[in-house]
């Protein structure tokens, strides 16, 4: 890091490089979001999955090497490659699970994958603690090579999606073999394929070009509505979650606030496990709307308790804030937190599934970026309460000055990192 800098980097230069490396998540995710359907629909779901897994593995090796040789450029390139590859991997994985599982187990399988992802995020966060692997960055990054190698091996062993083989590739024998692999010999593969064919319907005669399909997605009401429903569910996942610790610090001492944050994360994972058991027992619509409403109400309750604690000085109200957070994390984990990432694919017919899903992710990523960018500045500048028009102007000005001066690292601990989408 001393290249051309006899006294090392200035704090400002350091902040810029730090910010660039952290922002790799957006660059890496946005770039492939709209390219992914070209791979998934023309190349296939399985090759895209393998492609993503190889990319993740290469990025791990690149990042470890870059850290060993003190190359921030290498680390940045490795991170962009890693996030891009994970987007390919993530999109292809949802499509394969979606299109290969029996109808009655579809939601359960997708929910399990989301909960496992949350659990793995927890393991990753724990591994970053100094007592475990946090003392050595190359080891911490390099350690991921082991699970990613296993993931690559499993990707290679994963058969292609039966619906893709039948409806897009037109290869019925391969589709039958795929059905037998995923659903066993006890089901009638022919019946499953007959049911799958109904998905084509009138939409099967539609265009096949990328931009023509994009136009159809916007112009047909039911396709447009499916995307808006997916986007609305994903939008609900953007909340006060990224600044949990900061919010709790207003009410509790540092160590206590950090402990509560950790406990809330554990609660979120436990709620996810509970969600695995109830996702097939409760109507999905009721689960999504109920948990989303509970989450919105818990934010309202948080604001009320926050005002009671800080303005009216009611001591018990701080615990009210904690309870509101507990409800928020529970609602998120048990319901819409995981479902949000696959509901779009359940609402779209085969032909438009990949492109529609990627378009929703693309729009959501832009929204998530904007939210993650402004959440902490608006909280630090104006607290949880709404001010007058002058405050609004101040917020807009404040977020712009934040953009110029470099972004606070905590802004990047967005919900995206903790849920479904790749870190």
């Amino acid at each position, binding site marked *: 890091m001393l290249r051309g800098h006899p006294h090392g980097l200035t704090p400002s230069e350091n902040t810029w490089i730090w910010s660039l490396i952290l922002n790799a998540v957006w660059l890496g995710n946005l770039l492939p979001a709209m390219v992914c359907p070209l791979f998934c629909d023309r190349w296939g779901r399985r090759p895209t999955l393998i492609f993503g897994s190889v990319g993740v593995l290469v990025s791990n090796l690149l990042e470890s090497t870059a850290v060993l040789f003190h190359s921030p450029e290498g680390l940045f390139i490795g991170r962009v490659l890693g996030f891009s590859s994970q987007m390919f991997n993530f999109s292809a994985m949802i499509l394969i699970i979606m299109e290969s599982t029996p*109808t*009655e187990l579809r*939601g359960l399988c997708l929910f399990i994958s989301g909960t496992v992802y949350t659990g793995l995020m927890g393991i990753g966060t724990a591994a970053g603690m100094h007592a475990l692997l946090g003392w050595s960055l190359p080891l911490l990054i390099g350690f991921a090579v082991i699970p990613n190698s296993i993931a690559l091996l499993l990707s290679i062993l994963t058969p292609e999606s039966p619906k893709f083989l039948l409806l897009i590739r037109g290869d019925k024998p391969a589709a039958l073999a795929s059905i037998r692999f995923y659903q066993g010999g006890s089901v009638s593969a022919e019946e499953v394929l007959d*049911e799958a064919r*109904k*998905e084509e*319907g009138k*939409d099967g005669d539609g265009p096949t070009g990328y931009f023509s399909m994009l136009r159809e997605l916007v112009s047909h*009401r*039911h396709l447009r*509505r*499916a995307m*808006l*429903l997916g986007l*609305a*569910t994903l*939008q*609900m996942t*953007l*909340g*006060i979650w990224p600044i949990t610790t900061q919010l709790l610090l207003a009410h509790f001492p540092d160590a206590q606030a950090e402990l509560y944050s950790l406990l809330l994360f554990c609660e979120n994972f436990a709620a996810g496990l509970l969600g695995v058991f109830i*996702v*097939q027992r*409760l*109507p*999905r*619509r009721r689960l*999504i*709307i109920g948990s*989303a*409403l509970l*989450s*919105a109400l818990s*934010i*309202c309750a*948080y*604001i009320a308790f926050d005002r009671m604690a800080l303005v009216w000085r009611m001591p018990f109200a701080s615990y009210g804030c904690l309870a509101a957070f507990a409800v928020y994390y529970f609602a998120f984990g048990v319901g819409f937190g995981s479902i949000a990432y696959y*509901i779009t694919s*359940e*609402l*779209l*017919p*085969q032909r438009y599934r990949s492109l529609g899903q990627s378009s929703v992710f693309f729009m959501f990523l832009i929204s998530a970026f904007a*939210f993650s960018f*402004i*959440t902490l500045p*608006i*909280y630090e500048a*104006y*607290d*949880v*309460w*709404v*001010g007058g028009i002058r*405050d609004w102007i101040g*917020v807009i000005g404040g977020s712009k000055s934040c953009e110029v001066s470099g972004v606070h690292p905590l802004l990047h601990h967005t919900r995206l990192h903790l849920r479904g989408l790749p870190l």
Partner: protein
Amino acid sequence: MFIPFFIIPDFICVAYLYSYLPETRNREIHEIVEELKAVRGRGELKKRVCGDRIQPVK
């Protein structure tokens, strides 16, 4: 500041989901898509889901 940034968008999203989201549990994709095509919004529902079947509103 949380009201305009989180609470209002959240309630708008919940209202939209309540109005248009079809049931997806234990249903084939073509059934879900058919319902999406049929639903015209709250108050104009052409069909509703009863259990696993789609039935016309009486």
